[in-house]
């Protein structure tokens, strides 16, 4: 039985308290199945979630909240990011350091 995670929304509220995601370009390193990504994905102008584990990414890709054209999901590692320099305003390591 999987638990109910953070029903109070503490993680998201603390993230939003320290940075404004609205209209920004966000990279989430270690997005897993997208359970955190989906909570804020409606705010930035662009979100890219990356993770090395394909099984988790398949769940993320099938998530309706992450199906927007503004959201990208990719299988890669944080040590080798396939993006040019100065691509993102915000990089989030959510439980991935």
């Amino acid at each position: 039985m999987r638990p109910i995670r953070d029903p109070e929304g503490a993680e998201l509220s603390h993230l939003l308290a320290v940075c404004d995601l609205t209209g920004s370009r966000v990279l989430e390193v270690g997005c897993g199945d997208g359970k955190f990504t989906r909570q804020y994905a409606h705010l930035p102008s662009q979100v890219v979630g990356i993770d090395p584990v394909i099984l988790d990414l398949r769940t993320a890709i099938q998530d309706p909240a992450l199906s927007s054209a503004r959201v990208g999901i990719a299988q890669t590692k944080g040590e080798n990011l396939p993006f040019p320099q100065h691509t993102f305003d915000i990089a989030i390591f959510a439980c991935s350091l």
Partner: protein
Amino acid sequence: MVHALKEAWRILVPHGTLIDVRPLSIDVPLEIVYEGGCADAGMVDFSPGVDLDADADNAMISVTAEGIYTLAREELFDFTYYWKTVKGMQDDIKEYWEGEVNIPEQVWQRARQLFDKRRPKTQIRLAMRMKLGKYEKIG
């Protein structure tokens, strides 16, 4: 970890923001919550993750010492998990948290005793302590 942080530095715009949010490996109580109250079943041991915490902390110390990031803000908060049954939590811990947490048998026993009181809206709660660090890219 340092390599990933340097990659993040490369793809961030000047003065871009890096967020490091993760649980701390400190012991927290296992609680039985119900309508109108909660009861403590004992402490959950998260010490298996202490080395990972130290590695992550050291990576952040390394990149800030190098002068490529500066700490702008740090916050601590509780991140809660709720299970509907003790058995459900035990199965979940066994499948997904193996090696990350130790829960002594006496804590499980106490949890079952408290849970079996059948108070309204009883659930099991684990509130992990989280740290959120906001860093600004330098250069």
